């Protein structure tokens, strides 16, 4: 056959090329809107997920709340220690929920809700995730209510493990409604930045056609949905909601912001590209924040039970395999430490990028809350006790940083989810998730 298409990005990318893409991010110009903080800049939320647990004794800092030394795992964050809050002895309480430790930890991490069995033992998170909940409030003024990114969320398993599953999804629109993340940073770039900085007629033409097409799709979905029963109707309704979101975006003003540079296309499935993918996603999330294209984002490094091979650290075994080794042996333990330290390095890079963008008297880091979580505590035990949580950034002044908050008697992670809401301005949030006992936020955090 004469034709062939490998990718659908040509049109958008060539459009970009004609616009002279690349360049520094323009400083954000404060807007007066309902969700900006007192300094006029919006507060952003970025959740980070890495899986497989950690090695707690080498993760927990030493010292007191305000005078502490970072552990080997978190040591790469030392330059930004004053911008951190580290929470010790946090537990993801999953009693009563179906699923094993991996499943519960992953599905409950940001939802705080017990898993639900949708039939035939297929499990999903049982509620909306905290970022999506917050996006419903602070995401309404931006072009994208939120951005979900994941690096190789499906890699490292067999046919049955790969693909969408409770192990590979952390972000939820609601019970059993996992949100599919973007896995290709180039595709993310095309989605988020393709229209940015463009004011010429070509874009108007594209928008006019999209308007007409989306309207036609919308009407057809309406007609079909009317004929389906309740079981399937929610699928068509979700599709309609997404079409509406695309329609709104098509009409929204394009941000006045320089288009960031983006690297060359790389294979998002190749193990060796994992570090590059991490940087590409981080760069774009930072730039999307800077351009106020979104205020809520998530980045998921791999997935639960991922077998990413950290060959750039000299490892020849996969992550999940390593996490099951006997950590009483030094050479096994070192690998777990190295992997988790690598994630800390990525966080340090992220913080560095945020701190480099001036906003008012401070930087974007001051107006951002980063929360880095995990689905397990110590890997081999599959336990969801001592789950490592690190917070970074000032959340627009709502978070007092430079602290090591240890809870020797255990802190249920629901309280952190409540505090995240508080830090993003949802001050009335009393509980989060169905398993929350209602004891409020983390004591003394916000």
């Amino acid at each position, binding site marked *: *056959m004469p*034709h*062939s*298409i*490998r990718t*659908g990005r*040509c*049109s958008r990318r060539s459009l970009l090329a004609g616009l002279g893409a690349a360049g520094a991010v323009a400083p954000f110009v404060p807007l007066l809107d309902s969700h900006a903080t007192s300094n006029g800049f919006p507060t952003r939320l970025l959740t980070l997920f890495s899986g497989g647990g950690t090695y707690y004794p080498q993760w927990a800092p030493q010292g007191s709340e305000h005078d502490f030394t970072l552990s080997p795992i978190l040591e790469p964050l030392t330059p930004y220690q004053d911008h951190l809050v580290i929470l010790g002895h946090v537990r993801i309480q999953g009693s009563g929920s179906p699923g*094993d*430790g991996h499943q519960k930890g992953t599905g409950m991490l940001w939802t705080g809700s017990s898993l639900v069995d949708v039939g*035939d*033992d*297929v499990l999903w998170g049982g509620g909306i995730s905290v970022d999506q909940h917050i996006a419903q409030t602070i995401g309404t003024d931006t072009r994208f209510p939120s951005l*979900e990114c994941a690096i190789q969320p499906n*890699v490292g*398993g*067999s*046919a*049955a*493990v*790969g*693909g969408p599953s409770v*192990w590979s999804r952390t972000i939820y*629109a609601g019970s059993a*409604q996992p*949100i*599919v993340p*973007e896995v*290709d940073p180039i595709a993310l770039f095309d*989605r988020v930045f393709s229209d940015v900085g463009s004011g010429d007629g070509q874009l108007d*033409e594209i928008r*006019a*056609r*999209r308007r007409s*097409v*989306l309207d*036609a799709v919308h*009407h057809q*979905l309406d*007609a*079909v949905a009317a004929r389906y029963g309740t*079981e399937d109707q*929610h699928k*068509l309704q979700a*599709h309609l*909601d*997404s*079409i509406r979101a*695309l329609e709104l975006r098509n009409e929204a003003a394009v941000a006045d912001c320089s288009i960031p540079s983006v690297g060359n296309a790389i294979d998002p499935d190749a193990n060796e590209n994992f570090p590059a993918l991490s940087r590409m996603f981080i760069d774009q999330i930072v730039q999307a924040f800077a351009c106020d294209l979104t205020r809520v984002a998530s980045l998921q490094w791999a997935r639960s*039970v991922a077998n990413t091979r950290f060959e750039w650290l000299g490892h*020849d*075994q*996969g992550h*999940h*395999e390593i996490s*099951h*080794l*006997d950590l009483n042996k030094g050479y096994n333990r070192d690998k777990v430490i190295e992997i988790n330290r690598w994630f800390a390095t990525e966080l340090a890079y992220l913080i560095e990028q945020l701190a480099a963008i001036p906003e008012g008297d401070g930087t974007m880091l001051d107006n951002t809350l980063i929360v880095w979580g995990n689905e397990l505590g110590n890997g081999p*035990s*599959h336990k969801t006790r001592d789950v490592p949580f690190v917070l970074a950034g000032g959340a627009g002044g709502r978070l007092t940083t430079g602290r090591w908050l240890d809870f020797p008697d255990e802190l249920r992670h629901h309280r952190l989810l409540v505090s995240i809401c508080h830090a993003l301005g949802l001050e009335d949030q009393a509980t989060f998730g169905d398993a929350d006992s209602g004891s409020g936020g983390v004591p003394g955090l916000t």
Partner: protein
Amino acid sequence: MASNSDPRAADLRSSTPMAIDRPGRCASVLFDGPHRAPYPEAMRMPSRGQWSTPVLVFLLGCYQGLNEPEAELGPQAPAGSDSGIDDAGEPEPEPSACGGELVVGPAPLRRLTATQYDHTIRDLLGIETTLADSFADDERIGPFRSNGTTPVATLQVEQYQVAAEAIAAEAVEDLGPLVACDPTVSGPTECGRTFIESMGRRAYRRPLTPQEHEILESVFTAGLDAGGFSEGIQSVLETMLQSPAFLYHLELGDPEHPTGRDDIVALTAYEIASRLSYLVWNSMPDDALLDAAAAGQLGDPEQIDAQLDRMWADPRAGDALADFHLQWMAADELDELQKDPEHYPDFNAELAAALEDEIRGFVSWTFEHGDGDLSTLLTAAITPSRDPQVLALYGLDPSEGQGVGEPTPLDPERRAGLLTLPGVLAQHAHANQSSPVHRGVMVRQNLLCQSLAPPPEDVDNVPSDPSPDATTRDRLEEHTQNPECRACHELIDPIGFGFEHYDALGAYREQDAGRPIDASGELVATDGLDGPFIGAVELSHRLAESNEVQQCVTQQWFRYALGRLEVDDDDCTLTLAHQAFETSGGDVRALVRALVRSDSFRFIRR
């Protein structure tokens, strides 16, 4: 769920090294936790009253209807048949093909899979594409790809938008083959209308409703006004490719064909045509099928048989048969296979691709040149591969190969069918060593349709490090000494040990850790297959003759054909399909033929 995609069991199945298969300590693979009943009850638990070996009584009840020829398709063919309203105006209840009341399971709304999307674009527009690779991954029903569970997210809808825009732009670069009329002759509006009608029928796999026609015409007019005829066509195509009728398997049923039950409807002839084409071709119906639907010629068995025979003769059928078997063997992600370079320096992506091609070629050969029997699929000792790396795995010299199109015979003492194809063996192995556990679990789940549960949360499954001079078998034998582990591993490991002659790439080996391979194994807790065996060849021959495997294959084809799991209400369909399969001597096409004629294929429950 009696399948390998049981998420709780999935931990067992990874192709990558996991603790459960690491020797030395408890591997803690339990059927639904330690407190459930011991096998075999616990093992059959996933079938819970569903069609399976425990429901023989029901099977016999169903068999009674089989001697009446007309009962095979039911007296009333839904597609294109009369209204089913009798003289008094009362709906005449549609009887089950098994006699008695018609019951079928609910059919969830499904989106096209990635492969179906690409194939449909190819057949609709003549554009070869792998655009769907950029879509979010397909969900699975059992081992099979099917998107019927979770609603789409905005990202996915956007991916459809991006793809539709790219495809439409590509398609209008040459309007000649796309548009039958000449806008300069018939006028752009009239020509646009003609295009909408003809393309609409193929893109939506049924004639457009008047409302749809109207919507598409206004899209065309907007494009025409903005940028001319080509722009109008482009806008229409973009719309069609994002419409629910294109992206979903819409199955609304035929309101003109009452079944006597409010909750059960007969599919329309066009919906049957789509089910047929996505089953046999994994793609859209062609004009002949759509014409047959329009003419009401998909109602009686001979007509369906004729269509099936015609469709099976098309090369697309071989492709789809290969897809089924790759998914059934849980080997459809060989492109992501990784091996440890230290132990397998010869492994590379090209070999992984060649291993997939070999499986495809093997299946195609079985159906095109062989008898298409399950037993052939499970026992034939041939390779169709001409790839030097694959042949090297067999210890064959590429120059000794047969003529083009002729498969190379393999040593029947060493190879037997799908289970001993290197691609399947490599998929169910670790990166650096074989995996009796993964191979045993695969046989239990995918060939016997028995489900396995994951380790209980609190079991300490930290394995001890492997000893360099103990065989894999020794180390696994050691960890099954623990009674807590033994409960499950005695169901799994003795099957997997039969595969110990094959390393992590599927190459045959005589030794492990310097000692001769012991490939003796045992089947337990099966329905008539129990007993010791030696090696995967004997195992494959035993499985090939097994009624339990035939039943499981019937279930697997049901799942693949309908994109959903079976439920109790599908018993009649499964029973008749299995009976046809058995009567034919295990001919897979006889099984598919029976499925296509079944209640569950032709009716849906709302």
